[in-house]
């Protein structure tokens, strides 16, 4: 069955006739730009549409990302086998160190409870969390975000902190019923209030779509030391204080890059934590007083 309906005089397949074609292109380009403007004007509707699309694709992504992950774990196992001896030695020394730390931590914890009873300290609510698997790593060079297979069904809301055992990953940006989009701390639009742990100097961690986000808004005259730990400050109410973020790597020309603890490529499972803080991101639920209840 040959279809000659859309062949031009050159015998090449054609999409349509010339004038209609040009009209279609102009129309589509205008539609695209109109969508961009609409996205700028009404963020809520666009995010809802986006969450809907992501929700419908997420089962497919979930299936595809599984074999990739299992293949990767096989490769990892094989490489680990080769380094067994060296790693074992390393672990033994690490274990020794950690045992010392453990006794120190126990002593401090005991001291801490004692002091808290002395001060009549009211502890904050225990945070609830949802764990999810990373099903997509999206945006390439332009947007640093991941998709996680947990959503509104699990009680996740916009603005919640996303962490791994190593540290802060990012925050929830868009919520679907069974998937969420997480904006990584390295993204261009990510701004996290942080402190330099040792000196308690406040700053803002600004992503710039590279692997090393920068510290901005440092107080004048502060010279941060490479190797200093950066943790969330809790200002702005978006995140609780003290979540580890990264360490300062060498600074030059007034730019202070931070080496994050979490690496985008190693993200497999993440925890989405509800600290009961809605902060500046979404004030309405916080005002109603829900969030901590879970």
């Amino acid at each position, binding site marked *: *069955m*040959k*279809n000659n309906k*859309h062949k031009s005089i*050159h015998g*090449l*397949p*054609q*999409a*349509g006739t010339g004038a209609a*074609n040009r009209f*279609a*292109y102009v129309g*589509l*380009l205008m*539609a*695209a*730009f*109109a*969508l*961009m403007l*609409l*996205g*700028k004007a009404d963020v809520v509707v666009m995010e809802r*549409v*986006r969450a809907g*699309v*992501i929700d419908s*694709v997420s089962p*497919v*992504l979930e299936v*595809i990302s599984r074999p*990739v*992950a299992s293949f*990767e774990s096989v490769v990892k196992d094989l490489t680990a086998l080769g380094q067994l001896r060296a790693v074992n030695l390393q672990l033994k020394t690490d274990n020794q160190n950690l045992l010392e730390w453990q006794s120190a931590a126990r002593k401090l914890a005991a001291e801490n409870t004692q002091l808290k009873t002395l001060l009549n300290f009211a502890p904050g609510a225990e945070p609830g969390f949802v764990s999810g698997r*990373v099903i*997509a*790593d*999206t*945006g*390439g*060079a*332009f*947007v*640093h*975000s*991941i*998709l996680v297979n947990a959503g509104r069904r699990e009680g996740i809301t916009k603005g919640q902190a996303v962490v791994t055992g190593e540290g802060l990953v990012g925050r929830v*940006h*868009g919520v679907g019923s069974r998937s969420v989009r997480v904006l990584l701390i390295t993204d*261009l*639009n990510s701004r996290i209030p942080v402190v330099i742990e040792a000196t308690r100097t406040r700053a803002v961690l600004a992503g*710039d*779509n*590279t*692997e090393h986000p920068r510290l901005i808004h440092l107080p004048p005259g502060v010279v941060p030391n490479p190797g200093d730990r950066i943790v969330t400050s809790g200002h702005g109410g978006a995140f609780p204080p003290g979540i580890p973020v990264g360490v300062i790597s060498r600074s030059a020309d007034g730019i202070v890059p931070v080496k994050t603890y979490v690496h*985008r*490529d190693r*993200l*497999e499972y993440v925890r989405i934590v509800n600290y009961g803080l809605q902060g500046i991101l979404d004030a309405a639920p916080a005002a109603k007083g829900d969030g901590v209840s879970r």
Partner: protein
Amino acid sequence: MRSLFWQRVDFIARSLTPFLLTLVLVVLGQVPLHIPGFAEVAPILPLMAVYHWAIYRPDLLPAVGVFFAGLIQDALSGMPFGVNAAVFVAVHMIVVSQQIFFQGKSFLIIWLGFCMVAAGAVAMIWILNALFFAAMASVEAAFFQYMVTVGFFPVLALILVRWQRTVLAQI
């Protein structure tokens, strides 16, 4: 009568494959591969499909299909709606206008053509994102993503050409 019906179904199913393949590439491009540093420079797979079908079979992947694939890419990648849609439609428009030039050319010429088109496309994505967010993304990362996209093109082009010669031979 019956066989004619199935022939018709078969014809439509095959005709839809260029569009469906493009959608598959949109989704595949989002799968986390856990390769250090790869996510930032992952090739823009659907761009290759848009380019390929615009040269050989624009009748099977018209501008509307490309626009739709771009919207899905926008939704999944987290870019503002319309960015990839505009870029894909622009690529489609330019390549279709040069269709006669590309016909019967060697693969090297096709690849060089893609190098130029992809450069324009990545630059356009960069500019549109910069305008939308009023902030400049890393030029370096965009450049590396461009290089990886161009480098990956022959692999995908091979698959698409084979597909065209087998599945779409009679369409």
